[in-house]
């Protein structure tokens, strides 16, 4: 039932102070709304009950193991939420003067410095509001760099075929064209193909390392040299930074610019699809182009750096300061990890991934790259099950929902057939991983003995598989009042 179905004319929820009579008398009639907006008229209890019940139809980290590959669904510490919600932080207006903003600016400045250190980069801007906007900022900086050098021919961006979809989409938004680079049989970039692709048209290469195949790109130093020698720059997609945090740094690998997903590596919540935060870090040659605003320090005083300080900046990506509240949560988490905690993130996320991979292999599942070490995530392919039993990766994913586990990422990356991309994160305990393996074993047995149990799954969720063709064809995208 929708909230609209519970509406009754004249019923009220929270009642604000009444406006004086004729409050709107100075607004000309033709600029006024003629009919009340079609919002629900419900009581406060109805609202609380309706949305509490809806929340209970969700899987979430707080309720279920959520091993979505490339999404880093780790625990979101409660303390980060509580402290970012202190009244002083919530009440601060984005345009409040610096004199009454030193506490907030200090948090941002500290986080910039910490991220600089863990990435091995020269400078950081926190303003991008999600990973894709961080990618945009990075590629726009690469574009601005070449333009500033009058190198207008560099309009092509190289993207491995295993890349996230945001990579090519971002390059297009920045006015580039795309050339795909294939992956070799071991999951590394095909160096011969890359050698052939680079040239005076190359603006840069976008790379995720470890890649979306769940393995570390071992030839990264050679790749960086190839691209740099051709005059291009290297972009690091930080989606998988969790795998190397405190163990290796993109700056040392030769990357010129990168983004981080604070809602992955730094434990801020995903909120059912956001908000995230996608800070960018750059080396010295791209520093003049960083997006504004970010925070500088003069003596003991923090201040915004804006257009006047950074005339070559690619500009502003939002009206104010990105997702400031998300940045605060990440800062709190980073301070709790501290120096020793950064490396533990990589160690235990990698331990969990390799353990889960080993146990699934023992249970008879096929790793996509059996001779490689897993990073913080790995791929198994269900090609064999699809061929012999007619049970697909989608069927496994849906049956997992019945057994109390969120599905891994399915059908991505595109180059591994019938794949599950599995990322357990460091915050899961061993028993939870063992439970997941047991569920996978059970589904395998069902696939062999009672396949309809798997093909028809889920059976025990609020809905069964949905008719997505109908959703796209009939396009019911909004409830409408009956009279219109």
């Amino acid at each position, binding site marked *: 039932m929708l*909230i609209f179905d519970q509406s009754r004319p004249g019923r009220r929820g929270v009642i604000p102070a009444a406006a004086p009579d004729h409050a709107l008398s100075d607004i000309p009639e033709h600029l006024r709304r003629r009919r009340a907006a079609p919002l*629900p008229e419900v009581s406060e209890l109805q609202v609380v009950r309706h949305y509490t019940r809806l929340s209970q139809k969700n899987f979430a980290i707080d309720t279920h193991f959520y091993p979505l590959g490339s999404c880093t669904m780790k625990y979101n510490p409660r303390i980060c939420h509580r*402290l970012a919600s202190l009244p002083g932080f919530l009440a601060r207006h984005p345009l409040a003067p610096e004199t009454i903003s030193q506490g907030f600016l200090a948090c941002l400045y500290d986080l910039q410095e910490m991220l600089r250190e863990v990435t091995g980069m020269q400078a950081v801007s926190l303003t991008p509001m999600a*990973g894709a906007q961080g990618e945009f900022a990075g590629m726009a900086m690469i574009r601005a760099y070449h333009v500033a050098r009058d190198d207008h021919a560099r309009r092509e961006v190289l993207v491995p075929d295993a890349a996230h979809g945001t990579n090519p989409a971002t390059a297009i938004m920045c006015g580039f064209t795309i050339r795909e680079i294939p992956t070799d049989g071991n999951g590394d970039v095909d160096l011969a193909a890359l050698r052939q692709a680079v040239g005076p048209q190359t603006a840069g290469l976008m790379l995720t390392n470890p890649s979306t195949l769940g393995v570390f790109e071992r030839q990264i130093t050679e790749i960086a040299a190839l691209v740099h020698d051709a005059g291009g720059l290297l972009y690091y997609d930080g989606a998988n930074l969790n795998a190397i945090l405190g*163990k290796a740094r993109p700056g040392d690998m030769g990357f010129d610019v990168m983004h981080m997903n604070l809602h992955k590596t730094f434990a801020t919540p995903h909120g059912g699809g956001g908000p995230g935060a996608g800070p960018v870090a750059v080396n010295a040659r791209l520093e003049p182009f960083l997006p504004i605003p970010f925070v500088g320090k003069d003596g003991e005083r923090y201040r915004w750096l804006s257009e006047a300080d950074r005339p070559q900046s690619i500009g502003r990506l939002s009206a104010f300061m990105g997702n400031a509240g998300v940045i605060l949560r990440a800062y709190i988490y980073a301070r709790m990890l501290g*120096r020793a905690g950064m490396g*533990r993130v990589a160690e235990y996320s990698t331990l969990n991934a390799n353990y889960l991979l080993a146990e699934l292999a023992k249970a008879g599942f096929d790793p996509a790259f059996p001779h490689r070490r897993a990073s913080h995530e790995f791929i198994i392919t269900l090609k064999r099950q699809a061929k012999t039993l007619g049970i697909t990766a989608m069927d496994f994913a849906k049956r997992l929902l019945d057994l109390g586990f969120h599905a891994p990422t399915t059908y991505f990356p595109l180059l591994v057939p019938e794949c599950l991309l599995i990322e357990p994160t460091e915050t899961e305990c061993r028993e939870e991983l063992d439970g997941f393996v047991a569920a996978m074993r059970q589904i395998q047995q069902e696939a062999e003995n009672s396949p309809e149990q798997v093909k028809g799954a889920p059976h025990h969720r609020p809905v069964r598989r*949905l008719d997505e063709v109908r959703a796209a064809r009939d396009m019911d995208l909004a409830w409408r009042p009956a009279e219109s």
Partner: protein
Amino acid sequence: MPFIPHTPDDVRAMLAAIGAPSLEALFDEIPPALRIGELPALPEALNERQVTRLMEQRAADDPSPLCFLGAGAYEHHIPAAVWEIASRGEFYSAYTPYQPEASQGTLQVLYEYQSMMAGLTAMAVSNASLYDGGSALAEALLMAVRANRKSKSKRILVPRTLHPLYRRAARAIVHNQGLELIELPYDPTGGHTPAAALAPYAGQDIAALVIPQPNFFGVLEEVDALTDWAHRQQALAVAVVNPTALAVLAPPGEWGEAGADIVCGDGQPFGAPLSSGGPYFGFLCCRQEWVRQMPGRLVGRTVDLDGKPGFTLTLQAREQHIRRSKATSNICTNQGLMVTAATLYLALLGPHGLEQVAAASHANTRALVEQLTRTPGVSLAFDRPVFHEAILKLPRPAGEVLEGLLAHGVLGGFDLSGEYPELGDALLVCATETKDAEDLRRYAAALAETL
């Protein structure tokens, strides 16, 4: 170890299962030259009590004066139930609803949100959110250029009355795709975009006209005439609106003869705290005919295998994870939790509550202006009606006046000298429904003393 559950026994058993001698061995595919040791510049870890003390101190360092500053971010009362429910772990710690059977809660919230926004704007479709108002405008302009097949140009008319930071963000985001943003002057008496500003472009190939309502000065634009002008030129009308104002102002879908084509703005007034600028959310609505040009996620209602109603992400062929380089945008993560809060906010207030918030904000701003302009040398800059902001001319530089007000515990508004030097000593003020008569008197007294 904070947030890591492994006991020493776990680690031993797990390494044995893997066949690795140590945790370090798990990184043996990273070339040794790239491995790092501990990073000395990072601070030592803080425990929960220590980090609480640090953050409480930082929050306390920033006083919260009585706020009459708007300029795109507005202090409104947020009912307690909004964040009590939105912060539930089932909403807070869920991912994008790619597995609909395990995400019906988030999906239905998004569908209800889309419905509320479509109703408020009187448009057919709303997406499930973009990042903020500035970036939503950028996406709206890119969408307008894609959608307007009658125009071969990428030229877009943008009034100077539009928020200056929106104009900058939009420019930064769209300029690499060759869009040309042409600024339109405003009427020096009314503070609106007059017909005369459009006249030079009559008959030219223009892809879209941006129409703010209210505009950055708080002033109400003649939206019907602007919309009709755009359509006569075969340009799309892109509305940028304050969502609270929609409770009392004509919705964009009813502007002029045919209504606006695309509507965007910042949803912050619907349940998002000021919070230094974010997270807020951008909203984007459009006519049915442009839906396939829309960026961002869309939720649709459908049925499951048993014919039971349910919700799912739909029209994903527009999006980067399917279409890659041919997607309508690169956006992936959006502002889902903020939209959850907005849905709760709108459900709690209902049509009449929202109307009261809008009307009280309007009335408070009028009362504030009336009181402040009693101070000698202070006058209204423009003579047209406003929503909940207005520009005052001052006898002294606004920066100095704001400093003086701050000493009285009043955050007095936005200094326009940087963005609109031609206005002279001018200040943009805002009084929402959160202010009572005593607050207005306090501002007036502080201003009188400061001047």
